């Protein structure tokens, strides 16, 4: 559970839940918006991870 990916996913779950509840009023809209946010977080994290991969850090 303490892997980078696992913690990123957990972080994304919390942030998506809060933002979805803040920005949408109907439960159905919240669920859909939260799912899209979560997918966006994960996709962006993986994409940025791969973009950084060749850098000599």
């Amino acid at each position: 559970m303490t892997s980078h990916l696992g913690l990123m996913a957990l972080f994304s779950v919390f942030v998506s839940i809060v933002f979805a509840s803040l920005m949408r009023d109907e439960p159905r809209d919240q669920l859909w918006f939260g799912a899209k946010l979560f997918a966006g977080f994960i996709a962006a994290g993986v994409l940025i991870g791969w973009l950084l991969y060749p850098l000599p850090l």
Partner: protein
Amino acid sequence: MRASAADQVEPATNKYLVAAIAWAIPGAGHLLLRRWQKGVTFLIALTLMFATGLWLEGRIFPLGFDLSQPLVGLAAIADLGIGLPYFIAKFMGHGAGRVVAITYEYGNAFAIVAGLLNMLVVLDAWDVAEGRK
């Protein structure tokens, strides 16, 4: 996003009181305004997120501004955004932060972002109390 017609019937509540309660207990402002679903969601999600930060051995940054470490002061303000859980965790001796722990920075991120998100929740509760949402 505008509230539905049913939600727009608000009780007469002091917005300053709502903001203070919303800050002290995540989600409590919405509960006071009878936004039950949102209130419970914020209460569970933000409290769990802050607790996860402590579980990951993150640090609760101390209040007080040291010019040599300005980011510590900013992190403390962000941590404080979570309200009473900040003080309860401090009182219980949590949040010392173990710098050598592999999850230390993750823990800090969870605790800091939980505080910042609660600040947004306070602003949302304020808007609801004012009748703007």
